[in-house]
């Protein structure tokens, strides 16, 4: 591909596909993750498309109730465990973390490859449920008992997949924390580290400290189903609510695993395309760390209607409001960075702006959810479905696409068609809002989630929503087409296409095998601009 001799794409220990799947080069592993994660995203999208098609009219349209149950469960499992959690961290994180801190690789390159393999094994396990007798899991990606104990579908297999992918996630976190502690280039003090590595640092800690709780939870679920240990079975003295607690002790911090790296990406992109240094570097760092910390104390807000004392509900509600503050701080920082900047609306920036818009809607409706009284009204309705798609898809998903367009020239050494990329982005943005905004209204009117059917009065909203999904998917396909085509016919990209200031833009595109011929010495903050730039 790229023109430079001796870059990571044309130099490898093995030949052909082996040179990828056995490589310990963090850049190749990053690309492996990127391709895998994108494939799972597209498969999840197909499932989402099928569900929306079912919901275009009341009654049974294309699938049975049981198939619909499996569809949303598989869609949830794939999107959460195989797209959004590893998403930015394992792909762009793997590729750019070492480069941005001036290192030649991560601390444990072989462990890094093992993470990817575990991820793939987990994916195979998860997808095997479709073909095994018993059928794909139903009951949702949250595996709530008592239903998940009783269901005869392959819930244990799916839970085992979650266990294995969790292991992969822990290893990535462990690797990144050690890398950041040990391998920063000379002179790169903590407060000189770019913001993307900072968010990866916070994310990695959350991965390390939260994922084991998921591991034990799904393990106990498997034991519950196979041996009947009774921890979550009321007939045997257990308590299903304990499952919910353990599950959300992981899974709420996990939403910060999803969003923090996205915020890191946006913090890289906004200053580059505003031609300014980032506004309030320290505030972003501190808010990143505090989101990671306070994020542990809010899991109860998923369970306001499950049975909890009023005191507990008030405390969880308070912390949930509180955790919104650091996210708000970041939004203000990004806006202030743009203020009086010389803004260029290149595709990465367009996606970043869409992120800010969609994430703000998701975040603000999150505040509505976190007040107990409102929550009881909208719990388990389409308001929630809309809310989490706005945060996860509109937020992290769009940040992922922003990162893809921002770093594509660096990774591939090729440039894509910018106009087409922007057009695709705009189509996606429009489609996204047509798809999900009506769901806020439907949910507010009381349409419950996880049903293949609905009363006729909800028809209009659902039709609009389904049409939105078509527009959105058209945009996604256009984006993927544009990027794939440029692999073959794109122009060769300059080393610093966007005029970025961080280290990855100081080396050639695609980067050389060892990243740096000489380890750089850092003598200032990451986003400092020389006057002529």
């Amino acid at each position: 591909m790229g023109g430079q001799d001796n870059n990571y794409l044309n130099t490898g220990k093995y030949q052909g596909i082996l040179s990828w799947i056995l490589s310990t080069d963090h850049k190749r592993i990053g690309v492996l993750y990127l391709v895998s994660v994108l494939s799972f995203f597209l498969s999840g999208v197909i499932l989402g498309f099928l569900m929306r098609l079912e919901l275009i009219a009341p009654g049974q349209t294309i699938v049975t109730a049981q198939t619909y149950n499996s569809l949303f469960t598989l869609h949830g499992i794939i999107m959460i465990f195989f797209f959004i959690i590893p998403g930015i961290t394992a792909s762009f994180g793997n590729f750019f973390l070492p480069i941005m801190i001036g290192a030649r690789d991560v601390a444990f390159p072989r462990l890094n490859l093992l993470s990817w393999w575990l991820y793939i094994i987990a994916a195979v396990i998860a997808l095997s449920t479709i073909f095994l007798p018993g059928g794909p899991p139903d009951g949702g990606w949250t595996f709530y008992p008592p239903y998940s104990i009783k269901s005869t579908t392959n819930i244990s297999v799916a839970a085992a997949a979650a266990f294995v992918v969790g292991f992969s996630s822990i290893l990535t976190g462990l690797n990144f924390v050690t890398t950041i502690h040990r391998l920063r280039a000379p002179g790169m003090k903590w407060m000189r580290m770019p913001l993307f590595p900072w968010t990866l640092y916070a994310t990695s800690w959350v991965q390390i400290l939260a994922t084991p709780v998921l591991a034990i939870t799904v393990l106990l679920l498997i034991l519950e189903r196979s041996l009947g240990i009774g921890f979550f079975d009321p007939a045997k003295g257990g308590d299903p609510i304990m499952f919910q607690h353990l599950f959300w002790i992981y899974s709420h911090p996990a939403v910060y695993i999803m969003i923090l790296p996205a915020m890191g990406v946006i913090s890289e992109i906004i200053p580059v395309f505003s031609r300014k240094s980032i506004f309030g570097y320290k505030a972003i760092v501190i808010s990143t760390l505090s989101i990671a910390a306070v994020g542990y104390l809010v899991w109860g807000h998923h369970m306001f209607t499950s049975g909890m004392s009023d005191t507990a509900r008030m405390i969880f509600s308070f912390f949930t409001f509180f955790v919104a503050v650091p996210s708000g701080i970041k939004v203000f920082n990004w806006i202030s960075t743009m203020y009086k900047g010389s803004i260029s609306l290149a595709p990465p920036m367009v996606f970043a702006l869409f992120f800010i818009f969609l994430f703000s809607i998701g975040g603000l409706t999150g505040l509505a959810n976190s007040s107990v009284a409102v929550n009881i009204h909208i719990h388990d309705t389409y308001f929630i479905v809309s809310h989490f798609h706005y945060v996860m898809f509109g937020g992290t998903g769009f940040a992922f696409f922003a990162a893809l367009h921002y770093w594509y020239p660096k990774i591939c050494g090729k440039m894509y068609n910018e106009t087409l990329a922007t057009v695709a982005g705009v189509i996606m943005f429009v489609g996204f809002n047509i798809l999900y905004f009506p769901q806020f209204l439907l949910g507010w009117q009381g349409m419950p989630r996880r049903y293949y059917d609905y009363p006729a009065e909800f028809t209009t909203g659902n039709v609009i929503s389904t049409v939105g999904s078509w527009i959105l998917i058209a945009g996604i396909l256009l984006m993927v087409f544009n990027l794939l085509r440029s692999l073959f016919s794109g122009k060769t990209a300059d080393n610093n296409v966007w005029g970025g200031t961080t280290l990855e833009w100081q080396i050639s595109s695609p980067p050389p095998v060892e990243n740096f011929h000489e380890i750089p010495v850092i003598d200032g903050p990451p986003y400092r601009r020389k006057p002529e730039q």
Partner: protein
Amino acid sequence: MERAAAADINAANHRDYAGAKLGMWIFLFTELLFFGGLFLLYAVYRSKYLAEFQNAATELNITIGAINTLILITSSLTMALSLSALKSGKKGHSLLFQALTIIFASAFLVVKYFEWTAKFSHGIWPGSPELTSQGEIIFYSLYFVMTGLHGLHVIIGIVAFAIILAMTNKNIINEGDYIKLENGGLYWHLVDIIWIYLFPLIYLIQ
């Protein structure tokens, strides 16, 4: 100074002891949180079924538990001795202590095996019809799951030490490069510490 050292490490192909140890410690954190989920369940259910827990615990054999505690602590000692022997260049001693550690670890499992089979023959296993009260069911499930997962970690430890032993024998682990042995030791002490908590929680407090 420290940073310059880090850069050297970069060049010298990732031979970073402090880094390897940091990674190991982080892994140990994850183990603690893993068992933490079980300790949480234990705390909740103990407060819910206090009388039944106290009653069920009297069924367990404190002597056997104590013997196993002793075995495990001794194995941690031999583990530590093998490391210091290697550090001072006594490869033979180190190998001997490593072998002893494996033997103690296996002895622990043998005792555990007899303890479990004795329970089974009394009709006690998860889901057994002879367990009547809900508190009893939960207590014994906790007993089997907690000691079972701990036992699994002991097995993993034995496998790890077998590999470490072979590597020491072939001088891959040696006086100047003993990080794998040291990390194996850290893991083993963790397995030990978890047992130190399990023993009183399950056997002693009644």
